[in-house]
């Protein structure tokens, strides 16, 4: 059950060839070579990269990855391909180190060598290495690349929706707790839809009268059934004298109204 081998992507893209050096001419015999070598490598203990560890390189930066920067001889003329296939690909061809043992180490390795992760983490020297290796598990296989990117993005989206998310906040309404601009807030999504919130919590909510889906940050003053004092914009600093419901003119011009927080029923 061998995968169908397609020629490496870099051979067909001039941009990629700028990154990786001289382009590989893809001929039909190079496909045969790839197939032969792949056969060889899948037979050897199920790894898709050769067991032989590359020599330590002074230029490698990441701890323990042992990435080999020595490029293989790139002459792919049709004559000596089959002869060179077995030895050259094993010894000179630079490749990613085999994925480590253990489930989580392999998962981490898979995530670290995904092209999206390399791009986002600006590890461009690894990117060059990844692009240079035709046996990277994804770059020679565009559908796998597409699907694995989808999966990564979907997982990230779900994480931001259901676990934790981060967003900038601006506005003067929460002084002195938050500055007017430049604050970044981490929002716990476990408390979505008011799950487990209580009086005094800072919450992020969708503004109900907004047509553009704006989010607001405010503090909870009352849960359903609590009585709260609602300031109208012109209210002064009057004191409560034991009256529960009533309008009262204080030193200012407006009224203070005490309402009971309703149980989800509107009273427009």
């Amino acid at each position, binding site marked *: *059950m*061998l*995968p*169908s081998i397609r020629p490496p992507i870099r051979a067909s893209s001039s941009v990629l060839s700028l990154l990786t050096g001289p382009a590989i001419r893809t001929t039909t015999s190079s496909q045969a070579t790839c197939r032969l070598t*792949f056969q060889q*490598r*899948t037979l050897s203990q*199920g*790894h*898709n990269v050769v067991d032989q560890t590359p020599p330590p390189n002074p230029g490698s930066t990441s701890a323990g990855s042992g990435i080999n920067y020595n490029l293989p001889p790139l002459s792919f003329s049709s004559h000596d391909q089959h002869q060179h296939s077995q030895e050259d690909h094993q010894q000179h061809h630079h490749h990613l180190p*085999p*994925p480590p*043992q253990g489930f989580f180490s*392999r998962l981490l390795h*898979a995530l670290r060598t995904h092209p999206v992760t390399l791009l986002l983490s600006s590890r461009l020297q690894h990117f060059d290495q990844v692009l240079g290796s035709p046996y990277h*598990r994804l770059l020679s296989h565009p*559908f*796998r690349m597409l*699907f694995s990117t*989808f*999966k990564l993005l*979907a*997982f990230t*989206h*779900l994480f931001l*929706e259901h676990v934790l998310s981060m967003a900038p906040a601006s506005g003067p309404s929460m002084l002195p707790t938050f500055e007017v601009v430049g604050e970044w807030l981490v929002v716990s999504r476990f408390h979505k*839809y*008011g799950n487990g919130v209580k009086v005094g919590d800072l919450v992020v909510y*969708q*503004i*109900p*009268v*907004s*047509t553009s*889906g704006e989010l607001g940050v405010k503090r909870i003053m009352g849960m359903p059934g609590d009585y709260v004092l609602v300031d109208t914009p012109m209210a002064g600093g009057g004191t409560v004298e034991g009256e529960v419901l009533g309008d009262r003119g204080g030193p200012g011009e407006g009224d203070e109204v005490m309402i009971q927080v309703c*149980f*989800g*029923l*509107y*009273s*427009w």
Partner: protein
Amino acid sequence: MAARWGAGIRNGFLGQFSHYLIRYATWIPPLVVFNGWVAEITQIKGPSMYPFFNPHYNESTRRDIVLVSKWYPDRNLKRGMIVTFRNPLNPKGKVVKRVVGIAGDVIRTKAPYPHEYVQVPEGHIWVEGDGDKTKDSNYYGPISACLVTGRVTHILSPWDRFGRVKWWEHNLRPGIKKARHLLE
């Protein structure tokens, strides 16, 4: 896609089983995201939209299966659209009703709403079920458009009502005074 990637596939049943299990399980996040943000197939469970959905509610246990579009559903809501939204009294519950009034409309309400006339506030909608037995805006008032999670666009089952939900052909009940919007 049926190819084995070769990265660390073990020999033996347990190794291969867990490899394929994890590979197929990694499709769950994309499917969840698709269901939540692109489109979803769901069942209509109650009689509140009789006779549009579940016209045989009292005769059989078969319920209508519909396609709900989740693509920016709270933008550009129009009167007559059938929407799914979070129940304002219980955020985890999902409700399917028809949009009868949008922001600015004056609605003559039905029982048990306490006021006879209500103007739908900005950013809110008035939803009603087509049937008799329904808990809709006449019970909990206008709802914020932020609560809307999807629009029902197609009926998939049963076969004789298969097709697009033609919400624009629905005639609104009397008692809805449309607001004069600049773009209408």
